């Protein structure tokens, strides 16, 4: 092999991946960035450089939509963490055999074997006015009127999102818990730590990177969410993703592009702040 080939080899090896990245990540984002400065009217858009689109989205409505999205994010994050952590903990520490751990982890992924839309729609017969939950509660006499907030509400949106995305919280936490050497727990107990202290002093800090990675997944998924918001919110709930989707629907591409760029920036900011608090390098 010639010397030239030897020095070129690493570059040759990374070329395919670089091309894929450029084509499917960098180029589309650049396009969106470019389009966000274009002019448009109801029928066409023209290449230009205007900040009108950005000015156009700096409104009370956008601000409120962001607030609402943050609310969904906060609630979903909290719920996925509070439900996901115990599940991951149980899998990692209380299921004795590796085969069982893998099997039960696969059980956690079962909801993913059907499409998002079908999973969302399947909530309707459960939570609707005439749904199973309302009928059941009325049947045992706990309520007289059907509960309205169960479906087509912010509650339903958060419920749907938790259902859809909780695995993204469970998986990285499970992974980081599995890496904790069991002897550390015994050592902590030997040194006099109670169960709660073992958790607080050893397990929680060592699984923090898993929480960080799970949180990053949740942030990126929720900030761009529109399907769940539309299906479960029944037109009542707003989110940035849904706003962008509506703008695309009415052919306001540059406006949607500007919104997308702002959303990207906001999401990055949240992720950066998570990374400042928690160090995930060890997990990668």
């Amino acid at each position: 092999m010639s010397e030239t080939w030897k020095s070129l080899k690493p570059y040759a090896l990374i070329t395919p991946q670089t091309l894929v990245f450029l084509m499917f990540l960098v180029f589309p984002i650049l396009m969106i960035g470019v389009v966000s400065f274009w002019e448009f009217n109801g029928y066409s858009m023209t290449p230009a450089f205007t900040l009108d689109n950005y000015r156009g989205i700096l409104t009370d409505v956008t601000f409120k939509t962001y607030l609402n999205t943050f609310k969904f994010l906060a609630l979903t994050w909290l719920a996925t963490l509070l439900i996901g952590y115990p599940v991951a903990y149980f899998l990692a520490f209380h299921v004795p055999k590796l085969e069982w751990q893998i099997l039960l982890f696969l059980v956690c992924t079962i909801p993913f074997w059907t499409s998002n839309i079908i999973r969302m729609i399947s909530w309707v017969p459960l939570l609707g006015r005439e749904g199973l939950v309302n009928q059941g509660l009325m049947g045992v006499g706990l309520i007289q009127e059907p509960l309205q907030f169960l479906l087509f509400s912010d509650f339903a949106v958060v419920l749907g999102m938790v259902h859809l995305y909780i695995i993204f919280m469970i998986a990285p936490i499970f992974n980081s818990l599995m890496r904790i050497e069991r002897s550390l727990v015994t050592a902590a107990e030997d040194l006099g730590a109670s169960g709660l202290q073992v958790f607080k002093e050893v397990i929680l800090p060592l699984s923090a990177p898993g929480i960080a990675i799970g949180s990053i997944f949740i942030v990126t998924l929720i900030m761009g969410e529109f399907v769940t918001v539309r299906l479960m919110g029944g037109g009542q709930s707003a989110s940035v993703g849904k706003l962008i989707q509506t703008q695309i629907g009415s052919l306001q591409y540059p406006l949607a592009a500007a919104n997308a760029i702002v959303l990207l920036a906001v999401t990055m900011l949240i992720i950066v702040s998570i990374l400042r608090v928690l160090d995930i390098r060890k997990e990668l």
Partner: protein
Amino acid sequence: MQDVQLEPVLTLETVPEELQVEAKGVSLRDVTKSYGSFTAVQNITLDIAAGSYTCLLGPSGCGKTTTMRMIAGHEDISKGDIYIGETRINDIPATQRNTAMMFQNYALFPHKTVWDNVDFGLKMRGMTQADRQHRVGEMLEVVGLSSFSDRKPAQLSGGQQQRVALARALVTRPQVLMLDEPLSALDESLRVKTRGELRKLQRQFGMTFIQVTHNQDEAYSLSDQIVVMDDGRVDQVGTPAEIFSKPLSRFVARFTGDNNIFPGTVTSAVQDTNGQLIQLDVPSLGTLLCIGDYAQVGTEAACCIRADLMQIKSLTEAETTACGPATNRLTARITAVEFTGYVTRVSLVLERSGVEVLYKARTPDWLTTTFEEGQVVVLDWAAADCVYLPH
């Protein structure tokens, strides 16, 4: 991992009063541990003196770690009683037993600094900040790690990590310290050095140390008392010298040194000055003479001779030196000569039975001889050096 640290572990010649404890002995009475139908430890009765250094020695799976974990309280006791001092501790939780454990691979908290690792046990015991500050500082000084208190374990060498683990275990002033293969993660040269430091530390603290190891050199050099374990039972308890020169079973003879073992049947046993002079009929070899405390004629037993206690002679030399009345003599063919530094190991096959035996010579002595591979030689050994193995 590299260790460039050369200063000794102990920088203080006397242990600060605050770190001193009253050592307690440990007694096991008929202790059994079973998991379902599997018995890991079977009816162990054992006394460990206060302030002594005891090694539980045996191959992996012999129950030594389980025994230690039962004393430490990390494993339930299926049957029997364990006492620390006068107190029966079966039902006392691990944290209140006044024991501490140093784990294999140390189990240091990777997210905590050296200081916080050592401080952990005191913090969990709810000691005040000021007291802890003082004690941790002193402990780190004892193990010579004061200047490393802000480092994380990953930033330390293997030897330093080992000392942090030791400091973490000692700082709570345990009456009994248990060490699970404390030297196995270190490389050879560091292991020998650390061995000496452990022994020194134990003497200075006057604490009861119980160590689990599978390495007989470690057990010989560290212990006041060695407990050889096999298959969940105690095979032999004794001082290192006793275990080395007077094994009681084939297992101990095989496990603790380079012994040649000959199983056979006792044909006669007569009282001698050092016990009984026993004749053992070994199949296809003939009669071997050995010394033992007591043997019953007709029992199946064995005898062993340490590889370094035999004499090797050429056939002509053997003809001229008479074989004494209390001497064993066999002819063998040299199959391999292995030079290992100070000692040369010579493998031979007995002419009569085809059994392989080992002979060890000081290398300087071996170099003065002219023996070579393939040569037939005579092995002589005195009955007084040949140990009767009842089991």
